[in-house]
């Protein structure tokens, strides 16, 4: 049996089918979590933002146009929820290095390459402004097009192209060894 498509589930969910909505939520949970983490850089806050987005999405699902893709619609809600959470908690992490990356403390992983890579990535991501970080993750990690991301983040497409360009350059500058080894 062919898997149910997003469009079918979204259409049913928009008609008030809770089971279809639950299936969509489960399908998008990991992706929304990654995007929320990219926005907030803090796992617990990110999970809270996804949860907030879930409530907002259910309240708004009746207004969702099933002819449009569900993913960008839901991710836009997640991005807005993350922004709301940041405002509520007065988070100022756009330019600051997360505490865990700045001072990871003793850890069995501390000396491993993986731990070093995680630290480097944390720091590199933390140096990016939030919108650039989101544009990069949504484009390169999640596979959305510039136009879809522009709609999600409510900015012109040219801005997203520029954001992705600058974000990639910053990541390469911050992770030169990684660039060489991965090439």
């Amino acid at each position, binding site marked *: 049996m062919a898997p149910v498509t997003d469009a079918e589930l979204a259409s049913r969910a928009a008609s008030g089918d809770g089971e279809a*909505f*639950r299936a969509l*939520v*489960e399908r998008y*949970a990991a992706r929304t*979590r990654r995007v929320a983490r990219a926005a907030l850089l803090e796992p617990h806050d990110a999970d809270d933002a996804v949860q907030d987005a879930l409530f907002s999405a259910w309240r708004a699902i009746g207004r969702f146009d099933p002819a449009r893709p569900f993913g960008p619609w839901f991710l836009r809600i997640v991005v807005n929820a993350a922004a709301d959470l940041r405002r509520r908690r007065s988070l100022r992490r756009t330019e600051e290095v997360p505490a865990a990356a700045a001072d990871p403390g003793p850890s069995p992983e501390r000396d491993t390459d993986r731990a070093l890579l995680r630290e480097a990535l944390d720091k590199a991501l933390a140096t990016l402004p939030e919108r650039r970080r989101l544009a990069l993750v949504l484009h390169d990690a999640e596979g959305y097009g510039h136009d879809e991301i522009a709609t999600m983040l409510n900015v012109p497409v040219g801005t997203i192209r520029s954001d992705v360009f600058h974000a990639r350059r910053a*990541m390469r500058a911050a992770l030169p060894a990684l660039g060489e080894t991965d090439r």
Partner: protein
Amino acid sequence: MSDTNDFDQDRDVALGALLRGHLSAADDAAFAARMRGEAVATAQAGDWSAVAHWALPGLVAAALLIAALGAAVGRAMPASTARTASGSTAGSLTELASDSTQAGGGALLAVMSY
């Protein structure tokens, strides 16, 4: 990370995979299950709020209707009471007395006579 033209639509697949792995967590599957559970609760709460949304105007309308009926009955009552007082009190008591075969009928008469 590849050297793609950064203004292209093309994804930087290597960087994307690296970021996806970095932002993912070991408990993503458990998180998805938890979110599904949250969705169940959210949807059920949504159902109840929908019922409440529907019920509140209904209750208000019912209260208004009862109030209107009460007012109408209240306006009608004085006339009915006047008629009873002027002419038929004795008759009514007689009817009650003749019909009061049940226990307590005497007590009722005593109260009404008082």
